[in-house]
């Protein structure tokens, strides 16, 4: 079997995301070296893989989801002029970081040609660094996002009081566009196979609580919950609540709230 055949045998699984680490690094190095046949085969395999979505049983999203999305999109469209410039601009340091990464990647590829025995180690290191950079970037983005929510004057801050007076209270901050941020400390871990789940209690009489994130406290009992896209807008929400639910969360609360906080 030729080298080219060996690479071609990996293409379909790569398109599915099913390759193990070593095979993936080998194929990515080959693709990075510019093999036109394999690149074309990969494009075709990605299309074939995408068609597997049609194996999913037919299902229809709720009308509520459509309404929520359109409400959010209309709100963003109307405020786009004021915020687009700051949100759309890519910072200089990010471009510099991307350029530096590109240089490192190109050097690694060239070096791999010359020193074939080292190619896998080089690519694995590069992948680990890239992953680390992405994780750091995600953490930085999340921290900035949370800081914006906490400091923005349009955010609304309110406590979430425990039903059990022995429990600590939580602090919630809701920005009308950037989402909800809930923090707390010394929160006990829920029972085995149980999670904590955040709910939005609508103002409209008779409306059911809207399910949101499930979460656990960390080992020190600290809770940091960020909801980027709340299932309801602030003006339509009476309160936030947190219940304990089975692992995976629930579509409706199955227990009484452990914490509640009035939004308005």
């Amino acid at each position: 079997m030729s080298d080219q055949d060996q690479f071609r045998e990996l293409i379909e699984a790569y398109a599915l995301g099913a390759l193990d680490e070593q095979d993936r690094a080998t194929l990515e190095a080959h693709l990075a070296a510019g093999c036109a046949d394999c690149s074309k085969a990969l494009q075709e395999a990605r299309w074939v893989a995408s068609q597997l979505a049609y194996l999913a049983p037919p299902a229809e999203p709720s009308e509520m989801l459509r309404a929520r999305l359109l409400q959010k999109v209309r709100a963003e469209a109307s405020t786009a002029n004021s915020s687009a410039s700051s949100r759309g601009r890519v910072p200089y340091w990010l471009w510099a970081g991307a350029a530096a990464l590109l240089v490192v990647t190109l050097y690694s590829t060239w070096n791999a040609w010359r020193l074939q025995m080292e190619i896998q180690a080089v690519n694995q290191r590069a992948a680990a660094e890239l992953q680390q950079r992405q994780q750091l970037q995600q953490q930085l983005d999340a921290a900035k996002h949370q800081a914006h929510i906490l400091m923005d004057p349009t955010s609304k801050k309110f406590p979430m009081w425990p039903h059990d007076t022995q429990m600590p209270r939580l602090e919630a901050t809701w920005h009308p566009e950037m989402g909800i941020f809930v923090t707390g400390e010394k929160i006990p871990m829920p029972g085995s196979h149980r999670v904590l789940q955040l709910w939005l209690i609508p103002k409209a009489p008779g409306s059911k609580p809207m399910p949101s994130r499930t979460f656990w406290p960390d080992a020190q009992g600290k809770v940091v919950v960020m909801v980027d896209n709340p299932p309801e807008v602030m003006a339509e929400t009476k309160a936030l609540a947190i219940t304990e639910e089975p692992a995976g969360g629930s579509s409706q609360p199955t227990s009484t709230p452990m914490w509640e906080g009035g939004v308005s």
Partner: protein
Amino acid sequence: MFLAVLTPKDSPEVSLDATLVNRLLHRDVSAFEQLYDRHSRIVYALVLRILQQASTAEEVVQDVFLQLWRNAARYQAARGPFVPWLLTLARNRALDHLRLKSERQRRLEDQSEEPIAIAGAPPEYEKALDEKRRAERIRALIGALNPQQKRAIEMAYFEGLSHTEIAEALKEPLGTVKSWIRNGLLRLKEGLQATS
């Protein structure tokens, strides 16, 4: 080559999607509404199949369409048709969510949020099959595989598992699992070719 890269003018349906995405760049809410109505069912069905929970699936679908609204420029019609791009984005988001739930036990194979380039279907295939008939065709082609082979492909696609993880779960040799997945996708490709 049987799958030619499909340019927007090759199929009216594909061309309409590309036009609608282009209108998103100008903050056109009605274009977003049309894209949502055209494709939310298959996106939701895919995400629900992966996550198995309706409320979480709706959260992810909302996230996918908001990303489309906010970052429409990430889709480039010259690099492939819209629907496979959207489905790949939705699958990656759902698998990310699944991995977070299981404390990052599984690796993310596709590091990019957006597929780099995806070949288009044969134009006749795009024109001839609506969503329902396309689903029937794919199910028939995959249904013709042996049950273990079908299961291996589904585990890779819907659960994001690697060759090794699938071999361990099915208690089958690694080489067998690799062959099943590759041959299964090649047979699917041949079947789709025959459709066109």
